[in-house]
């Protein structure tokens, strides 16, 4: 992953200053070596419960990208006028307003999905990624950099969600986005013809935690620098 990202950087290097090396690092870093979920331990709260299906994970990713991208810009624009004592309340109000927009849009255009996500859309407000990025980045940097940082971190978060969602839906119900990729379990076609069975346990919430644990294992054994020292 890191090599591919570096190659892309080299190719795009002589482009416009908006995407200078530093700025691009803001997007690519959270995708791999500084991932919000597996390294920074942020935003696990509202993430794992909705990863039983790939579709819900993708919708959640889009919602978080929107909220974090726009929210980072808003906070960054206001960073000089927010009194530091009440900044948490100001940040919460900005996020809550953005999340209400997401919630209403979902209710209007994808009602059944918004029922399925239930309170977890609301819980984006207290998603630690969002407050964490506001505190650590948007309060100290300009709007464009904050926007890139927001998109990058939300995408890094979404990458983990989508990986978890992919495996849980594939192994749990044998489908991807609702399509029966492994065959039909009732009519015994595809893999099911050979005696394959769905692992229904993948759909229960504890498996999300274990899958994330395994992802961390894979990531850290590929990049030894990330291993925790105690």
């Amino acid at each position, binding site marked *: 992953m890191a090599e591919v990202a570096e190659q892309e950087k080299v190719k795009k290097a002589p482009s416009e200053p908006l995407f200078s090396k530093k700025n691009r690092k803001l997007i690519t870093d959270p995708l791999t070596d500084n991932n919000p979920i597996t390294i920074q331990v942020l935003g696990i709260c509202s993430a794992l*419960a909705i990863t039983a299906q790939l579709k819900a994970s993708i919708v959640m990713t889009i919602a978080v990208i929107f909220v974090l991208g726009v929210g980072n810009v808003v906070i960054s624009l206001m960073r000089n006028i927010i009194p530091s004592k009440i900044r948490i309340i100001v940040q919460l109000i900005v996020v809550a307003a953005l999340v209400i927009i997401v919630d209403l849009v979902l209710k209007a255009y994808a009602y059944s999905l918004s029922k399925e996500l239930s309170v977890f859309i*609301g819980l984006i407000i207290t998603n630690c990624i969002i407050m964490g990025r506001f505190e650590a980045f948007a309060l100290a940097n300009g709007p464009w950099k904050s926007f890139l940082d927001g998109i990058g971190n939300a995408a890094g978060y979404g990458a983990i969600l989508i990986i978890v969602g992919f495996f849980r839906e594939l192994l749990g119900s044998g489908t991807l986005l609702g399509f029966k990729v492994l065959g039909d379990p009732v009519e015994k076609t595809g893999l099911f013809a050979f005696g394959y069975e769905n692992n229904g346990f993948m759909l229960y919430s*504890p498996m999300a*935690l274990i899958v994330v*644990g395994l992802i961390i294992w894979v990531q850290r054994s590929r990049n030894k620098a990330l291993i925790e020292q105690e």
Partner: protein
Amino acid sequence: MEHLELFFKSIFIDNMVFATFLGMCSYLAVSKKVATAVGLGAAVIFVLAVTVPLNWLLDQYILQPGALAKTLGPEYASYDLSFLSFIMFIATIATMVQLVEIVVEKFSPALYNSLGIFLPLIAVNCAILGGSLFMQSREIPTLGMALNYGISSGIGWFLAILAIAAIREKIRYSSVPAPLRGLGITFILTGLMAIGFMSFGGMLTGSDDGNKKEKVEQAIKVEDKKKEDVVKKEEEKSAKTTTALNQ
């Protein structure tokens, strides 16, 4: 009985951490030592016990569709402010946390020092907002039940963080594979504990279903008896009338 049921249900079956993943960030970040875990857990119970009933009142008298009719008069019955609930809940929580911080600092410096940095952190703990949102979506009926729900789900969260902190203190001495050390093994442990907690699932629901079925069956039997009685009476009547006519 209702209260007891809700109490055990929120602690064990719908445990905040193991069933709904609420408050995972601070659960993972602050569970390295038992002492700090206890401090944060106590703070969470306290704040949940204050904010859930408060938000219940807000929900009942301002936010629910038609709730304004109760507070301002019947001409406001058509208003539906439920889209504002996120912003109202989070504002209540943030202000209550700051208020609690000021009060505790003033009247009990010892408790304030032991809770330390955890109190302001709690405003952004998903478990707190999650408590209020679940209170709304599960339609908790009374203020007392809301208070009960707040306290008991706080206790559930407390239990979870206490258990994981104890395990993490011990696991430092065992040889975990290097890449899994720290965060990775904590995730897997939490997963295993969640599987354990799933076994509480049938504790209340199973007997509930049984009771309901029995009740329904009894009701059906009673109705059948009534019908039989009515039929018998009619038969008797018709028999009497026929005998009367014959005479």
